């Protein structure tokens, strides 16, 4: 049963595009997120628990990942190039801090 004193770690769901011609290594993104947010669970597949945040990791600007049905409770962000990682991480950080204040 859910114990409010030991809250479940928040789930950061990584959703990839299909990867037909990615311009950077998309699979490095979850590893970086795991290192940056050890308090959260970074998952690359759908799970039973609700997603706290959805990180859509696209290999290029076409950004064709299908994510319309995927929504994190605290939001969603899409990245299409390696240099957008910092922006994505900032959005994840803000969402975790926001939750913490509640």
């Amino acid at each position: 049963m859910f114990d409010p004193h030991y809250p479940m770690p928040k789930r950061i769901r990584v959703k990839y595009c299909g990867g037909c011609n990615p311009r950077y290594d998309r699979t490095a993104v979850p590893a970086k997120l795991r290192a940056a947010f050890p308090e959260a669970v970074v998952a690359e597949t759908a799970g039973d628990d609700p997603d706290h945040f959805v990180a859509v990791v696209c290999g290029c600007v076409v950004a064709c990942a299908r994510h319309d049905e995927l929504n994190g409770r605290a939001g969603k962000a899409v990245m299409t190039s390696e240099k957008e990682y910092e922006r994505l991480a900032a959005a994840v950080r803000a969402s975790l801090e926001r939750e913490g204040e509640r």
Partner: protein
Amino acid sequence: MAMMTGDQYVESIRKLDIKIFMFGEKVSSAVDNPILRPSLNSVKATYDLALKPEYEDLMTVKSHITGKRINRFCHVHHSTDDLIKKVKMQRLCGQKTASCFQRCVGMDAFNSIFSTTFECDKKCGTKYHQNFVEFLKEAQEKDWTVDGAMTDPKGDRGLSPGKQADPDLYLRVVERRKDGIVVRGAKAHQTGICNSHQVIVMPTIAMGPEDKDYAVSFAVPLDAENLFMIVGRQSCDTRKLEGSSLDVGNCEFGGMEALTIFDNVFVPNDRIFLNGETDFAGMLVERFAGYHRQSYGGCKVGVGDVLIGAAALAADYNGAHKASHVKDKIIEMTHLNETLYSSGIACSCEGFKTESGNYLIDLLLANVCKQNVTRFPYEITRLAEDIAGGLMVTAPSEKDLRHPKLGPYVDKYLRGVASVSTENRLKILRLIENLTLGTAAVGYRTESMHGAGSPQAQRIMIARQGNIESKKKLAKAIAKIE
């Protein structure tokens, strides 16, 4: 089970009693034969990739029949987005295997039969669409690899099926029974057939009423009685028997084709998708060819990506990468490759809904795509050979490289830049050889020419779809001709 792992796929093929002949002998199984195994590995990759989260968006999709997640190779496209993702999936599979991964022919057969049977039933009161949907449901549920068999041997190209000296040169119905039909004939050049679960047969050309027995489409399992294959030779194929991974260029993946013989094969009623309705033979051929011409705008591009990468590495290893003409040749290869991709994507974006609800590509653009495919891979290979240098065809064998006495000489004299080992240089050159004139050239070159129809077949379609009268009107309007 709606999706198999690669290993489950391999075991499922091992279980089938497929009758394969090669070099005059029966092969016990495609799974353990060193010449056929790379072909099986390419198909295996389509299963393995589908289970990786980073590729699921391209490799998997929700079935419109069951709502379950399935491999996209078993899908019937229901939007232009589906058509686009098909091409992207094929580019991805080409990149990962650098060869023909074979599963597209079945997927293209699914899509063309789905819409053609619907329209045939509507006009003729037949029940083929239901038969086909039941078959498709099973294919999706069991995650089958299905061979798409269209090309008949065709004998004298100047004669129609019924006028051939030997009536079996086009596959035909030889007996109609209460419970099904018996067919006889052959299908040539069958891609991936030795490692498929089922084969779907389709007619090869549009037909007139006199060719009723030839207007036939159906599915049978690969281990059906009286069905057997004779494997086609590929240049350098027996290198795979030598146990050298360097000399074959691509030691894991490959493609294969076989002459497939239906020597009085029984087809039960519920697996028949066309049986004498000659009006619909042409529709089926045109749609299958259209989808398959789109396919090449993905798969050949993915293989091209690997070849361009290999040529760029060969230049790096040679120390020629800074030369302006080499840089320009890589740009040209990329330009040609992306032009192929553009028409694959364009014909998908312009796709439209058929009466059955599935989506068909824009046929004019799909034919333009394939017409480009009959040319550009040849120019890309020419440029790759230019950049690679002559060593791609004159390098000694791996055995010589490993030889205690000869090896040091090979290593010393065949090195390019000092920072790269001779072995790595030879590996890249062998990969280029494999793609341009070895076993993989079957898929990258000659299949680009003839697969999904020879160049003239596309020109006929382009002429038909080109809307020339409207273009004349445009010119008249500008030139003020009344």
